[in-house]
């Protein structure tokens, strides 16, 4: 098929840019550990969340030097526990599941943004370098009270 010389140039530039984008994405995702969250199945019976470890005891546990695990349950329309408090510079490993429908888990002002689905446990980590009251909100429509579904993380 004949392709005009200028179109060849145009497509070559375009396709090269796409290739560069893809290489950058792959390098940062697979080489520098910036993959999207929760890639592997970590399943749970969604009807037994509150009696299944670790969700039978949701909350913050110190796991290392200024490192914490936050075990959280998303439900219509809130998060358990209601609020978390950590020192500045703390890294939190979030372990979150849903006890009913699909929810979102977004921490405003950070890159923490993941889906919480019944039957699956989602994981993500974030280091809180700045003090403040971080807003955690549900960004996936989950019912009438969706706009009230939130919690906070106090970093000080």
């Amino acid at each position, binding site marked *: *098929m*004949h*392709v*005009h010389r*200028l*179109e060849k140039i*145009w*497509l070559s530039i375009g*396709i090269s840019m*796409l290739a560069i*984008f*893809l290489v950058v*994405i*792959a390098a940062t*995702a*697979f080489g520098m550990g910036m*993959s*999207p*969250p*929760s*890639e592997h*199945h*970590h*399943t*749970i019976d*969604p*009807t037994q969340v509150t009696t299944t470890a670790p969700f039978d005891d949701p909350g913050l546990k110190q796991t290392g030097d200024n490192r914490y695990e936050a075990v959280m349950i998303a439900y*219509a*329309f809130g998060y358990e526990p209601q609020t978390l408090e950590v020192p500045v510079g703390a890294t939190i490993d979030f372990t979150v599941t849903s006890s*009913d*429908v*699909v929810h*979102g888990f*977004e921490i*405003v*002002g950070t*890159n923490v*943004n*993941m*889906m*919480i*689905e*019944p*039957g*699956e446990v989602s*994981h993500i980590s974030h280091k809180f370098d700045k003090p403040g*009251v971080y*807003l955690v*909100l*549900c*960004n*996936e*429509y*989950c*019912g*009438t*009270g*969706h*706009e009230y579904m*939130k919690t906070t993380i106090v970093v000080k």
Partner: protein
Amino acid sequence: MKQPFDRRDGKLVLAHILFAFVALLLGGVAGMLQGTVRSGMITLPANIGYYELLTAHGVLMALIFTTYFIIGFLYSGVSHTLGGKLLPGVRKLAWIGYATMSIGTVIGVIVILLGKASVLYTFYAPMKASPWFYIALALVVIGSWLSGFGIFRQYMVWRKANKGKVSPLFAYMSVVTMLLWQIATIGVAVEVVVQLIPWSFGWVDTVNVVLSRTLFWYFGHPLVYFWLLPAYICWYVIIPKIIGGKIFSDSLARMSFILFLLFSIPVGFHHQLMEPGISGFWKYTQVVLTFMVIIPSLMTAFSLFATFELYGRSKGAKGLFGWFRMLPWKDARFFAPFMGMLVFIPAGAGGIINASNQMNAVVHNTLWVTGHFHLTVATSVALTFFGITYWLIPHITGRVLTARMNRLGIVQTICWCIGMFFMSGSMHTVGLLGDPRRTAYTTYDDHPDAILWMPYHVAMAVGGMILFIGLLILAYIVYSLMRAPKGETEYPIGETAEGAEETPRYLERWGLWVGIAVVLILFAYTLPVIDMFQTTVTSPGYVTW
């Protein structure tokens, strides 16, 4: 070649187009109200919920307006270019399809307005709507299949009667569009019929949530190309004729459509990048395939501007950009789709950002995404469809677009662009700040971050009102077109530039292309779906509204 449009086909096409515009108007009322609610300007009277409006808005705009308009438009072109009229069997099939879709739409709208299905147009399980909502959706899909089969039938009969000839470009593109639709809707049909309907009736207790979302997005991304391809048909085939130019290359136009068929389906995971239960390898694989589908859009951009430049230069334009001024800016049939093309540049760039694997975390489920598809489908596609309407209704009804209506068409386009600039612009900006989509008025207990979003919500509402005015102008134009003076309006079908090479035959070897499409789909989905069957724990249903 002047040929009046077959009267019986005209009725069929007009029925589709008018149904589409009624849906658009109702969906627009819902959309305008949402903007005012979210910005805190009004609160809805007692019994109307924000999420009912949102569901109605999404279903009426994204599913009903688009599907009806597309089927009507494709049938008009198929009738016009494949023999001048539809075969009796095809016309009957199209009417049965229309009736089936319409029954589905009416049931669906009633169930939504009764508040039995406030699950938005993505209806993510385990939120469990009334079974009649899912049945309504199934009817819409089945109706659209019947209409698609009619287009295939007309095309096959034409090919048999015209052995050795290359099919008309419009018909070829219509076949690709409906093939894409048939293959894509299999996913949502399986989700609705096999998973959701039995579960919603209570015949089975639980549903595989991860699988249902995967089936939905297997359909959900090609859905946006199902909206876009008919707009591309207008850009490739109709616009060159309207400006008085030629189609740049028939073969490249067909090739770009084939690439859309191949690469727009095995890419649904780029809507699920932030989800559990799908491995990073398969997410990235589908991101790569997603980027492939950008190539035919690059080809399209080149072809369109080549057509514009060749036309301008043939009229004596000088300098690098002199041809730009030669374009018929005062013709609404050109101006509306052209603004659509222009908007597709930032819209497409935004799409690349969304699909960029881990970078999706910055914008996922924020208003940025809403802003994105209000540029793609609600501006690029919608303005193109409006531009089509300005000659299609006059053509099939034997009337003319008056100078006054043409001016109104220009005003409508400008109004739409200004409204969208405010609305989509604020959505993009505030989305980057983390403002979630699909959320009613809230300040999250006066959290300072959320308070900062409010001015953007006001700008969104203002944009929404300007858009609503645009919609009223459009409704007035459609109404006037139905009563316009009698006369002859041409069906603008472009011709290929002289000296362009002959179209290669392999482009119409459908077995080959559908085969490759199936192989790509199986490659992208087989292993992750097996994984979903093996490990996922199913969930009971909930009514949370």
